[in-house]
Every structure is written in C-alpha cells, then in structure tokens.
C-alpha cells in the first residue's frame, strides 16, 4: 500500500510538472504507471532539477507576462475570445441552415433523409437536335432516344474552361470556332460549358479588369488619404460572389458575340465554298444561344425589394425565354409563384398548359390533360435557398418521366443559383436572401384593360402596362433573334 501511494505521488508530481498535451490525464497516469519505477524516479528527479534550475527565469517571465497583459488591457484580448465567438456563430448558423434545409426538403409522407445538393453546374453536350442539347451527367448515360428532349438546363453562352471535357463536344471538334478559341487561349483547352464552370476563363478576365481599374485609379489623382479606402472597396467588389457571377455571365456573353461575329465574317468571306458555307451554317445553328439581352440582371444588395423596372424587365425576359423553350406544361408553385404565373399565362401566347402545385403539400404534381408531356417549366416568384425549386423540379421529373424539366423565377439569390446551377433561370439575381417583390405576395393577379395588376389594392400592388410589357418582350425577342 505504501509503495502504491508513493508511486501515485510520484506520478502526480510528474504530471504537475509536465502535464499531458490537450488533456488526457487518466491516459497519462496509465502510461507512467506502466513505466519501470526506476525510470519514473529518474524522470522525476530530472524534471525537478529542471524546474528548480529555470524557476527564477520562469517566475520573472510570468511576472513580465502578467504586466504586459495588464498594459495591453481588456480591449485587446489575447485568448482568442473574439475570433472564437465569430467562428462559433458561423458554425451555429451553418448548422441551423443545414437542419432547416433537411426539414424543408423532407415531405411529410417520406422518412427523414439527408438530402444531397444539386450538382452545381451542368455541361453542354452536342445533341442531335437543332441546338446543343444541355444534359446532366445522368441524362448523358440515358437512352439515346430520350436525348432528343430539350434537356434540363437553360442554355448559357460559350466560355473557355481548361478543365472541361472536350470529348463531349464532338460537333465543335476541329471546327473554325474551336480553332479560333484555341488560338485565343493557347494555355487552356476550350470547351462549351455552363457559366458556373467557367471559373478559369473568368479569372483571366477578372485579372484584366482589376489591372485596368488599378491603372484608372493611378491616373485619376485620387487623394492619398482616400486611395487606400477606394482600393479596398474595389478589391472587395472584385471578390464579391455577385460580382463574380455578373462577370461570368457577361464575359460569357461577350465570348458568344465575338464567336458569332467571327462566324458571320467567315461565312461571308467563304461564301464561294458550298462546303464551308454549309459548315458555317451548321456551326451558327449550334451556337444559337440566348442573347445577352435575356441574361440575368444583377441586383445590388440594397434595397431589399426588387425595383419595379427590374420586375417588369424580368417578366419580359421570362416570357422571351419561355417562348424559346416552348414548354408543353408550366407548373406554377402555389403562393407567390401563382401571382407571377398568372401574368406569364396571360402574356405568354404559347399553347402551354398551366397547372398549380403546392410544393409544401403532399399531393403529387398535377399533370393536366396531357399525359405525354416532353417539356415542363416550373415557375416561382422568388427562389431564396433553392430548396423549394429543387424539390419541385425533382417532383416534376418523377411525374413527367423522361420529360425535360427546367425552373424559372423572377428573382433568385446567389445561394439558390449555386444550388440549382443551370437548371433554373433567374431573371434577376440578388445577394440578399430576404429579397422581396414590389407587390403584396399574399395578393393575387388581376387585370384591367390597360394593366396587368399584381397584388391586392394599393399601395402593395404593381401595375404593369400591357403595352409596356408587350413592347419590352418584342424588343428582347428581336435582340435575341438578331
């Protein structure tokens, strides 16, 4: 017993002098207990001697440290308390978001499950139709007969991306367009990709823009006192995800326009050759993509309500894009989506069947009278997290097996755009998940002779002149076709 007590004392003394790293005292005791007693005694005596030897320096250092801490004051903590608090807050927020997403995505009839996010982007692939048929990796492996459908992704323009899979781009292989792109970007392999994947190309443009802005500042005689602030603001902007998205879309549009011009020029110059003319015509057909005039508009962070002009312009873009897609069935999401859907139904002019679906309910997507529907469009007013749109797209794919299914909303957030990739088109993109629309979302759509009216009564309503909207649609359609 006496020996045991002596051993325990020895172990505790060693642990006081040399405590285990990051806790684990019990395991440390076991480790020491397993050592030969003589080794323990030797270790103890060495540690004791070392403690005694360094005690004066240690005490002096400790006193100085305390003094320095007092001088520094509580406003400048050194324990990491502020940074830790911020990190914990972010951790808790992400955790809460994930819990909410799981709850949101599990329908009452189904058992809870972990929901995978959508693939952030989808590549184009050369299809057999009159335009490149965008397909998901899943549909690439699907029955070739099904590959004739318009696909589940909205068309985006061309951009260069070094990591893309050129093997999926057979229609453009060896073409003039491809050679031109290779010549312009010798260090990257070119490919036709969706904007979300075009990071490398965008980075190059971003570098050029940053450089140009820096040059501009240099020549603008900005006072030294403001130069740093201004530089920081611009640097922050260049790293802003909304700005990045803006740059992606607009540089993509620019590339598309350059290619189109080049093809037109070549087509004219080579008109004497039937072969080249036919080839250029085919390329032109394959390169038919939406005009930059119907691209997403990027909203500033404030105000938190979509402006009326952006709303009207957005509806016009939605109508033009609907006409390009020509859906056979439009699934309007219950709530805010109904108000937007009704306007689209009145202004669309196509022959689509419009049905209303409650994404929060347990009912299946109504299929209307057309049981054989090959193209479906899901419409909502706002897509904040992308979860509702994701669930609805999946429900539609289940209900209309084999059909092409795409989504569309008047306004989406950067977050939802990341979740949905090219499966959904947003006429407006906002960085603010609390973004609102300029009418009462609990109201309804009604019409007068002159106006489409969204929302009940005044002031929470938005009248959109029918003539104004028709003109806007006509203008965008003309630009798109041009």
């Amino acid at each position, binding site marked *: 017993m006496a020996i045991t007590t002596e051993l325990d004392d020895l172990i505790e003394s060693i642990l006081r002098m040399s405590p285990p790293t990051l806790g684990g005292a019990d395991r440390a005791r076991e480790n020491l207990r397993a050592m030969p007693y003589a080794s323990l005694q030797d270790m103890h005596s060495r540690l004791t001697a*070392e403690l005694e030897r*360094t005690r004066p320096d240690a005490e002096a250092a400790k006193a100085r440290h305390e003094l320095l801490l007092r001088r520094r004051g509580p406003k400048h903590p050194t324990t*990491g308390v502020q940074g830790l608090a911020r990190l914990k807050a972010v*951790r808790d927020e*992400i955790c809460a978001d994930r819990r909410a997403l799981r709850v949101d995505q599990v329908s009452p009839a189904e058992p809870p499950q972990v929901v*995978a996010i959508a693939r952030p982007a989808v590549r184009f692939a050369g299809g057999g139709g009159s335009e490149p048929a965008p397909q998901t990796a899943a549909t690439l492996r699907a029955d070739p007969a099904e590959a004739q459908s318009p696909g589940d992704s909205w068309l985006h323009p061309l951009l260069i991306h070094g*990591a893309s899979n050129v093997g999926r781009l057979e229609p453009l292989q060896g073409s003039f367009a491809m050679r031109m792109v290779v010549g312009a970007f010798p260090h990257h392999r070119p490919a036709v990709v969706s904007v979300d994947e075009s990071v490398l190309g965008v980075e190059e443009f971003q570098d050029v823009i940053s450089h140009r802005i820096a040059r501009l500042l240099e020549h603008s005689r900005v006072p030294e006192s403001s130069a740093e602030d201004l530089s920081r603001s611009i640097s922050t902007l260049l790293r802003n*995800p909304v700005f990045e998205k803006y740059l992606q879309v607009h540089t993509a549009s620019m590339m598309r326009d350059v290619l189109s011009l080049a093809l037109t020029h070549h087509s004219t110059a080579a008109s004497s050759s039937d072969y080249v003319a036919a080839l250029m015509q085919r390329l032109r057909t394959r390169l038919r993509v939406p005009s930059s005039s119907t691209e997403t508009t990027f909203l500033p962070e404030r105000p938190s309500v979509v402006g009326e002009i952006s709303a009207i312009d957005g509806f016009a873009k939605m109508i033009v894009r609907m006409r390009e897609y020509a859906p056979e069935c439009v699934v309007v999401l219950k709530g805010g989506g109904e108000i937007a859907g009704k306007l689209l139904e009145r202004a669309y002019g196509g022959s689509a069947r419009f049905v209303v679906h409650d994404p929060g309910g347990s009912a299946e997507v109504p299929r209307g009278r057309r049981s054989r529907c090959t193209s479906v469009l899901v419409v909502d007013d706002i897509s904040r997290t992308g979860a509702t749109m994701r669930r609805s797209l999946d429900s539609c794919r289940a209900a209309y097996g084999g059909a092409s299914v795409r989504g569309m909303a008047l306004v989406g957030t950067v*977050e939802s755009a990341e979740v949905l990739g090219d499966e959904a088109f947003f006429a407006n993109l906002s960085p603010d998940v609390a973004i609102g629309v300029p009418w009462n979302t609990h109201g309804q759509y009604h019409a007068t002779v002159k106006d489409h009216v969204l929302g009940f009564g005044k002031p929470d309503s938005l009248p959109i002149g029918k003539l104004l909207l028709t003109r806007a649609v006509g203008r965008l359609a003309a630009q798109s076709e041009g």
Partner: protein
Amino acid sequence: MVASPSLDPFFFLRLARAVADGRAVSDPDRAGVATRLTARAAVGARRDPDGELVADFEHPGYLKRAVENRTVFVPAHLAPVFPGMPLLADVVRTADRLSLNAGHPICLSGSTTFLGRSHSASDLDFCEYFLTSPQAIPDAVAAKAAETSGGVLVRFKCGGDVLKAPWCDLPTVAPDLLFADDGEQPARRFKLDFVQRTQILGLMPSTSVVLPLDPDSIEGPNARFSFVYQEAVITSGVPPRSLLSAERLAHYLLWLRGDVRSWLGEQKIADVTEAPLKALKRVLSLLLTVGRDDLVEPCIEVLSSEEIADVSFGARIADLKAMIADIDLETGRPFLEELDELISRLPHALPTPTQCAEALLGARELAEELLGEVDLMFEAAA
C-alpha cells in the same frame, strides 16, 4: 493564465530569443530540452484515436506505432491530434505512391498531422528525405510521372521554375534545375504536386517536398527547409533526424511566428483566400509546441467541426480543378469525373459565400489575437 508549478512555456521561447539574438545555447538548456521532450513523450503516449502510439525512449520526444509494415514516428505534442486507423493507413499508402524511392523516409507534414481532430483536409502535405544519390532524381521523377493508377503527377517545381505534363523535357531540364553549374552545391530541393485518389478522403491535392540529403551529414543545407517538430516520419528504420536540437527547435518557433505574420499581412490576405486559416494553423502549432494547450483546445474544438471544416472545401475543389486542368486530357478525364462525383456526394449544402467570408474573418481575428499572445510571451521570455 500560465499554470504553476509546471515547467514554464516560456522556456522554449527563451531559447528562440537567444538563437534569434545570436547567443549560444547553454549545455543546461540543451539538457532541459531533452528532459522536457522525454517527459512529454512519456505522458503523451496512447493519446491517438487507436491508443497505439508508444513512447520511443531511444529517440526522445517521439512516439511510434507500426503501420503497413513500417513504423510511424510522431513528435509527442502532435499525438492528441494525430489520425488513427483506417485514415492513417490511407495516408501512408498515399505517401507510398508519392515517394520517389520506397526506401526513403517520408513524412506527413503540416495540417496532415492534425487529421485526427480535423473533419477534413484541403490537401495532404508530405516531405521525402532523398537519401540516395541525387543523380537518380530525374529518372525517379520521370518514372513517377509515368504512373497514373492511384494518382498523377501534375507539377514539378524547383526554384522558381514549374514543369508540367507532357514530361518529355523532364530528363533534360530537371538536371539543370536541380544541380548548380559548379557541381559543388548539393542538389536543390523540389516540390511535386499530385492529384491523388485516397480511399477515405476522396480526391486530394497532395504535395511532396523532396529534400536531397546526405545520409552521412543529414543536417546539411537542405534540412533547414523542413522542421522535424511538425513531421511524422514513415520509415522502415529509425527517424533520420533528432528532435533534441535546441537550435532547430528555436528556429522552428521563429519560423512559425514569422509565417503567421506573413499570412496575416495585407498582401497575403488579399491574394490568398485561405490565408487566415493558414495563419491560424501556424499559430496553433506554435502554441501547441510551447505547451499553451489552454489556448489551443477551444480553437481545435471549433475548427474541427464539420461546418467550419467545409469552409475550406471550396479551396480544395478549386485547387483540384486547377491541377486537373494541367493534366493531359485523356489522363485527366477520370479525375474530372471523380471530382464531379466528390461534389455530388456531399451530404449537405456547403457554406454560403457570406458564411465562408465570415468564417475567414473569424479565423483572422483569432489568429491575430493569438499572435498577440505569442508576441507577449516572446517579450516576457526575454
């Protein structure tokens, strides 16, 4: 506050200050280093997830365990954060694939040694001690470049030069990069960047720094580019370098402190998205080495959470994309598909850009606060 009557955490910093000021380290201080590291290993054994790491008193300061027919030697202060099986075996197999010579010791380095407490890693870092003739390096790298099964070599970096696939120029260019004209200097160190398939972590950017070293004089000029205190050595023999050098320990602490400052500098913060996290890792390594666990533990608790670990997932993906872009098309295609698979298999949405930015701001604040404490300790240790 620093607890008493423990051995004081200012001791190592006093050594660092002495070395920084050009003062010689006294013999009692050298003995003090040995006493402290030996005791640290004795109490720190079996703290890994498997409880397999045991003190190696023949190589003071190290703990060791057997993995895949080799021995892994781990500096004792890393034991509580060091990974266990099966992750460790996966990492060791990855090290084998990166190694230019199976007989060379290769080390897990940097944040790879923290994988026991970290939910994920943005990359895997290794350091190979090239102990055979440096003349064999070009052929060894060429042979590695021809392998594509478990991973693929993407870049060869030496000095300021970067070579990429196709590797046809490698046999002629590499010797010029590796060896000085006069032939007197030892071969230069170089870095190999790989994309590697790992069983548990998935597709990973992996880097191996290769140090040509003379086995008869292992602490030669190239040895200064690696720090044994942040390396777990995988070897069939014994650890090639000792932990007991007071000077090397001092240099390591000084390098960590300088590197934290560098990552927190305006230029790095502006240029490198992950700069705050890198600064934070360095300052935590410093505090862990000197024994300020009281500051390290709460940080590891937050940083090891899945939510915060996912903040660097985007960097890993971007890194992989950039690396795959440098591989020839045919070889890169399966890796690109695996990358898609890696992204699509995520069981949850990644943090939003705003949340990432906020987390990076938190990491920066935390690193700055802890650097403040390190600075105070350095000053107090005078």
